[in-house]
C-alpha cells in the first residue's frame, strides 16, 4: 500500500447482489492494491473454513454478525485503498430493491458509480435500478463493468449487445459520462492489467479509469454558496471584536476582497479575511472548511448564507423535490409535518402534495397509487416554516439536497433532491 500525500480522493459506490461478483471485484481491487492485510486475510480464511467454503472475499465487506449469518450485505460498508495516484473510498451497498435507501446513501457522496453486469444475463432489472439511482443522485460518472467475460468466451458480440442495451436505456436518464469495460473479476481481466483475451477492446482498465477519471470539475466553482455553520467568538482579550463565520464552501471560489451578499438580510459586505485550517489564505474552494471574516459588523448566525452579490440561490418556502422514502414503519403522510435539515438550517415543513410515484425499474410514473412506503421514490411539494436558500440539485448537490426527520422518533425518514 502506498500513497502520495498530494493524491486526490475519489469516492465511488458499488451496488450489487450476491451472485454478480461485486464482492470478488472489491476483494480483487483491495488485494491487487495490497490493501488487504495478512491478519484480515487469515481471519477471512478461518471464517470461510468454518463455513466450509473456499476463501470468501465477501466476508471482508460483510462485517456485521447478521450479515454473515444471512450471507448478504445489509448496510453500507466503507472500504479504503490507495494507489500512488489516488486514495479511494468505496461505499459498498446491497443491490436488492429492499435496500434502495442504502444505495441512495452510498450514492449521495460518490464521484463514480460502478455498475456491474453479468455478461451471461445482460441488462436486468437491477442494472436499470442502479443506473436510475445514479442518475437521480447525479453521480457524475458511471462505469459499467461487464463481468464474467470468461464465461462467455470473451465474445465481443456479447459485450457490444450489452453496451447497446444499456445505452438505449440510459438515453432516457440524466447521465452524462458512461464508460464500459469488459472484465472478469475472478480472473482479473482488465482490472489492473490489460487482458490479452480481449484484443478487440481498446479502452482503459478499471484501475486506470479510476485513477484518471477527471473529477476536479465535478464541483460547482461558479456560484458562491457559503452556509454559516458556526459563529466563532473567542472572548479573549486579543480577539476582542472577532466574529468569524465558520463553514464549508458548498459552491464557488471565495477570494479575499470579494463583495458578497448576506442571506436572508440581503445586505452586502466584503470578505476581509479567510482563515483556513493552516492559517490565513487568499482564496478558498468548494468543500474547504474555513472561517470568513467580513469588513462590516453584521450579526450572522447558523443557517444564514453568504453568496456572491448578484448571484443568489432561490429564496423560497415552496419546494418541489424528488424524495426517497426511508422509513420502514410508516408511510409518507400527505399533509404530514416533518423536521427538515438543509445545509445548516434545521426547520419544519409540511408535505403539501404527492404528485406521483416513480417505478425505479421502469421509470413509469404512477399517479394512482400514492401510498409511499420504504424505498419508494416520489415527487412531492413541500412548504417550509421559513425560507430556504436552494439551488436545483443538478446544479449543486449540497444546496440542492435536504432530509426529512420524523419528529416522534427522530429518525431520518427521507432524502430529497430539489428539482
Amino acid at each position, binding site marked *: 500500500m502506498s*500513497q502520495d500525500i498530494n493524491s486526490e480522493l475519489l469516492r465511488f459506490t458499488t451496488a450489487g447482489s450476491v451472485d454478480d461478483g461485486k464482492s470478488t471485484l472489491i476483494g480483487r481491487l483491495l488485494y491487487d492494491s495490497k490493501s488487504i492485510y495478512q491478519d484480515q486475510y487469515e481471519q477471512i480464511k478461518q471464517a470461510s473454513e468454518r463455513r466450509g467454503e473456499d476463501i470468501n472475499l465477501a466476508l471482508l465487506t460483510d462485517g456485521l454478525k447478521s450479515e454473515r449469518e444471512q450471507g448478504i450485505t445489509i448496510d453500507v460498508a466503507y472500504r479504503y485503498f490507495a494507489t500512488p495516484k489516488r486514495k479511494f473510498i468505496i461505499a459498498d451497498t446491497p443491490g436488492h430493491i429492499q435496500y434502495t*435507501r442504502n444505495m441512495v446513501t452510498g450514492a449521495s457522496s460518490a464521484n463514480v458509480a460502478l455498475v456491474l453486469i453479468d455478461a451471461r444475463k445482460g441488462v436486468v432489472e437491477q442494472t436499470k435500478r442502479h443506473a436510475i439511482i445514479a442518475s437521480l443522485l447525479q453521480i457524475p460518472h458511471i462505469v459499467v463493468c461487464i463481468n464474467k467475460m470468461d464465461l462467455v468466451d470473451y465474445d465481443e458480440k456479447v459485450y457490444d449487445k450489452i453496451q447497446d442495451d444499456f445505452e438505449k436505456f440510459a438515453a432516457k436518464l440524466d447521465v452524462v459520462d458512461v464508460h464500459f469495460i469488459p472484465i472478469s473479476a475472478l480472473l482479473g481481466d482488465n482490472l489492473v492489467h490489460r487482458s490479452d483475451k480481449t484484443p478487440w477492446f481498446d479502452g482503459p482498465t478499471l484501475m486506470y479509469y479510476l485513477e484518471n477519471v477527471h473529477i476536479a470539475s465535478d464541483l460547482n466553482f461558479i456560484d458562491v454558496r457559503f452556509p454559516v455553520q458556526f459563529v466563532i467568538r473567542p472572548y479573549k482579550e486579543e480577539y476582542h471584536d472577532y466574529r468569524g463565520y465558520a463553514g*464549508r464552501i458548498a459552491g464557488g471560489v471565495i477570494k479575499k476582497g470579494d463583495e458578497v451578499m448576506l442571506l436572508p438580510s440581503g445586505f452586502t459586505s466584503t470578505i476581509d479575511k479567510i482563515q483556513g485550517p493552516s492559517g490565513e489564505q487568499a482564496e478558498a474552494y468548494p468543500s474547504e472548511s474555513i472561517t470568513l471574516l467580513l469588513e462590516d459588523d453584521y450579526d450572522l448566525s447558523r443557517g444564514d448564507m453568504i453568496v456572491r452579490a448578484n448571484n443568489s440561490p432561490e429564496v423560497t418556502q415552496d419546494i418541489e423535490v424528488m424524495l426517497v422514502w426511508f422509513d420502514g414503519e410508516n408511510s409518507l403522510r400527505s399533509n404530514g409535518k416533518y423536521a427538515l435539515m438543509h445545509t445548516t438550517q434545521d426547520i419544519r415543513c409540511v408535505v403539501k402534495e404527492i404528485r406521483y410515484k416513480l417505478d425505479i425499474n421502469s421509470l413509469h410514473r404512477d399517479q394512482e397509487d400514492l401510498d409511499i412506503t420504504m424505498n419508494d421514490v416520489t415527487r412531492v411539494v413541500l412548504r417550509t416554516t421559513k425560507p430556504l436558500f436552494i439551488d436545483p440539485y443538478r446544479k449543486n448537490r449540497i444546496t440542492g439536497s435536504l432530509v426529512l426527520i420524523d419528529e416522534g422518533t427522530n429518525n431520518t425518514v427521507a432524502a430529497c433532491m430539489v428539482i
Partner: protein
Amino acid sequence: MNYNLNHIKELESESIFILREVASQFENPVIMFSGGKDSILIVHLAYKAFFPARIPFPLLHIDTGHNFPETIAYRDSLVEKLGAKLIVGSVQDAIDKRMVVEEKGFNASRNGLQTAVLLESLENGKYDAALGGARRDEEKARAKERFFSHRDEFGQWDPKNQRPELWNLFNGKHSMGEHFRIFPISNWTELDVWQYLAAEKVDLPSLYFSHERDVFEREGVLLADCDYISKKPEEKVYKETVRCRTIGDMTCTGVWKSDASTVEQIIEEVATTRMTERGGRTDDKRSETSMEDRKKKGYF
C-alpha cells in the same frame, strides 16, 4: 483551473465540518481522550476548527489504572497546553466501589470494564455527544459505523437500525437520556493519520517511536512486561526494540518489533506492513465479532 485539494486536506475539511456540527447541534459534548494518536488527532483538528477560540469540549479519559506511564505524562502536558478541562473516569475506583468486578486469569484485562465506567462518566457529566477517534478502516464492525452514531438510554448501539447519512447532513436529534457517539475521522486510514501528523508536526507520545523495553510473547503477540499481567512460567521476559502502533491499556496493547524512530520511518513502516494495527490487540481476538459485541454494549 488550478484546483487541487489533496486527499489529506479533504479529510481534514470533512473532520472539521463534523466537529463544528457537533458544537452546533449538541448542548454538552465531550472528547473521549485515550492518549493514542487518533484522539490526539481529534484534539488537533478541534483546535483548528474553533481557532482562535478555545476548543468548546472538555476531554474525558477513562483510566484503567493500567496505562503506560508515558500516556499519562503526555495527556497532562497536552491538557495544560490547551487550557482544556480534563475529566478522568477511573476503573480502579469502580472496582473499589464494587461497581464492576475485575476479570481473573492469565488473559485478565480491564478493557471490558472500561465500558461501564465510560457509560457512568457520560451519565454523570450529562454529556449528549462523545467524540471518539475510531476509524472505519480499523475493524469490520467499525466499517459500518456512522459519523453520528446514535446510542439509546442504555448506551447501546443498534447496528441494524442506523440513521442514513447523506451529503453534508448529519441528524443529531435525540431524546433525553440518549446520546451520540461521534467519529470525525471515520474516513481516515492509519496511513492518512500518520501522513497528516507528520505534515502538521504534531508532538506525539514517545511510545509510538522505537525504544527498548522488557517484553514477552503471548499467542504470537508481544506484550510489554508490567505488574498488571500475570505471566505463565513458560513466558520468558526479554529485551526488545519495539514501538506501539496503537496505545491502550498495557494488558492488551501489543508492541511491535520496530526500528522506526521518526514519524517518517513510521510512515515507511505502515506503508509496507502486512498486518492491521489492531492485529496486535488481544481484546479483538476473543471472537470473530468481539468488536461488534462490545460496541453494541457501549464500548468506544
